[in-house]
C-alpha cells in the first residue's frame, strides 16, 4: 500500500473536520479559521496529486492556491476586524 494514499486519506479526514467547523462555527472568525485549514488541506492534496501523477503542473497549482488562500484569509479577517472596530466605535 502506497503511503501517499494514506496521506490523501488523512488530508480528506482533516478536510471533513474543517468543513464541520466551517458550517458549524458560531462566529465569523471560526469560519475564516476553517477556511484557512481547508486551503492548507488543498495545498497538501495538490502536492499528493503532483507525486501520484508525476508532473510538476500540480506544484504550480499549489503555488497559486497558497497565494489565493493567503489573500482570501487576509481580506476576510481584515473585514471582520474593521467591521467590529466600527461597530464598537459607533456604539
Amino acid at each position, binding site marked *: 500500500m502506497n503511503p501517499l494514499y494514506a496521506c490523501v486519506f488523512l488530508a480528506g479526514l482533516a478536510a471533513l473536520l474543517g468543513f464541520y467547523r466551517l458550517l458549524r462555527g458560531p462566529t465569523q472568525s471560526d469560519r475564516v479559521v476553517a477556511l484557512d485549514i481547508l486551503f492548507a488541506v488543498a495545498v497538501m492534496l495538490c502536492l499528493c496529486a503532483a507525486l501520484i501523477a508525476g508532473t510538476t503542473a500540480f506544484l504550480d497549482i499549489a503555488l497559486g492556491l497558497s497565494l489565493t488562500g493567503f489573500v482570501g*484569509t487576509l481580506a476576510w479577517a481584515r473585514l471582520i476586524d474593521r467591521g467590529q472596530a466600527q461597530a464598537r466605535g459607533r456604539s
Partner: protein
Amino acid sequence: MTLLGSGLCLLGAVLLLVAAWGVVRLPDALSRQHAATKAGTLALAAFVFGVAVLMPEPAWIGRLALLLLLLLLTLPLASHALARAAARESGAVEDLAARGDER
C-alpha cells in the same frame, strides 16, 4: 531515501489532521486559529520537505523551495490577521484594555 520521504509526508498529513482536530475541539476562535496556523505551517513544511526528498530533481526542488518560501512568508501574516479578528470579535481586546485602566 524513499522511506525518509514517505515518513515526512505521513508526518505532515498526521500533523494536518491534528490541526484540524484542534480546530474542531478547542473552545473559542482565538485558540482555534492558534491550533490551525501553527500546526498547519509545520504540517505543510514537513510535507514539502518529504516531497523534495522523494523527487530530487531541479524542476521539483525549485518550485518546492518557492512554495515553502511563500508559505513561511504568508502563513504568519494570515495567523496575525486571524488572531486580530478573533480577539476583536470575542471582545478580548476591550477586556484587556478595561483591565489595564483599573490598574
